[in-house]
């Protein structure tokens, strides 16, 4: 019944993770920074990379999924923790305004609500998500996605002089 967390010292584990990712997938960038393995992947291979992390390498905890609106593309960051001191950060870039990516709910069930929040705030849709509804905003008659840079709120002008 007990869950087995990865063994070994920190450097050993980071090397092992880096090798595990590199050997299985073609990555755009892969490096180790401090206690983090930073990977850059293309959007189509995100589920494969994350399922390697879960099944082969034993990284069990998905901490958060962040979306950053770069005004023309979305930059997604998935941060995984192996609960013993190492972190794995997977970064993708989704081009274009209407953006779809495959869901990782089948691999990390906790991503369910993170992806709902990403959809609600940015409009990033997740193919295959069991329950893609809005989580904060009201569900009818609100066609906007608030955290996009094109959705301005009133104080944007207040601090213009400071930039």
């Amino acid at each position, binding site marked *: 019944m007990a869950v087995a967390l990865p063994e070994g010292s920190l450097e050993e584990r980071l090397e092992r993770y880096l090798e595990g990712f590199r050997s299985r997938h073609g990555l755009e960038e892969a490096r180790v920074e401090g206690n983090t393995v930073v990977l850059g992947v293309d959007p189509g291979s995100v589920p494969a990379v994350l399922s390697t992390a879960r099944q082969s390498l034993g990284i069990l905890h998905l901490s958060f999924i962040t979306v950053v609106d770069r005004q023309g593309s979305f930059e997604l960051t998935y941060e995984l923790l192996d609960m013993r001191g190492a972190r794995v950060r997977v970064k993708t870039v989704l081009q274009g305004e209407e953006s779809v990516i495959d869901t990782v709910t089948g691999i990390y069930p906790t991503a369910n609500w993170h992806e709902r929040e990403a959809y609600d705030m940015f409009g990033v849709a997740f193919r295959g998500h069991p329950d893609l509804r809005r989580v*904060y*905003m*009201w569900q*009818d*008659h*609100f066609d906007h996605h*608030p955290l996009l840079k094109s*959705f301005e*709120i*009133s*104080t944007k*002008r*207040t601090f213009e*002089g400071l930039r």
Partner: protein
Amino acid sequence: MQKFDEPNIITTSTDKLFNWARKNSLWPLQFGLACCAIEMMSTGMAHNDLERFGAGFFAGSPRQADVMIVSGTVSTKMAERMTRLYEQMPEPKWVIAMGACAISGGPFLDGYSVLMGADRVIPVDVYVPGCPPRPEALIFGIMTLQKKIEREQQVGYEKPRPALVDEEGNIREYLPEREYRQISEGKAHRPKGIKRLPRTYVFQRKGLPPGSMTDVGWIPPEARERLKARRGAGASGSGEREEGKEGA
């Protein structure tokens, strides 16, 4: 009040009697929205006891409540439910807006889903400022409400109505949530005679607002001498500082 010689007969007006009964047993509705709710709970707890004012029973259902203490940010999604709760409370009822968020939107004034104050949809009787207000401040707010209740009259008194009840007393359609966003941004239609709130940006404001009763306060004597000298010496000193000093 008039007392007779026998010890157990007092005459008073019904106004005073009813008001005395109502103000000393105000049962709040348990309407804790956000952080101010914690201070409301603290006020109800043993250290700052709200029970001694008769307001210790936080009613769970609006049908049994007298006072709705709006404690916390009212979001547009919650505004409709809040109005519905207000209308479920039986008369006589009062509303205390506790905290900066309930008064005017507070630190989240510019949010897209924050109502700029609870008084945009329901009539508020007492405003308690603070973020969050101390329990002593909330107790002061309840005592102010008690003084207000003392002044009430049973006849000849027009109580303000919530925004969704029109003059005949009919309930208009509950606004869909998108309308509340217009209310919260100050764009909604307001009845005649009420001016729309002007929105000023922080970088447009200079000096103190007009009609403000604050001055710049006490200045140490050495500094005052220096300022007087500078003011006398050059007329090219900043005009605003001179204006400010005039009030000192």
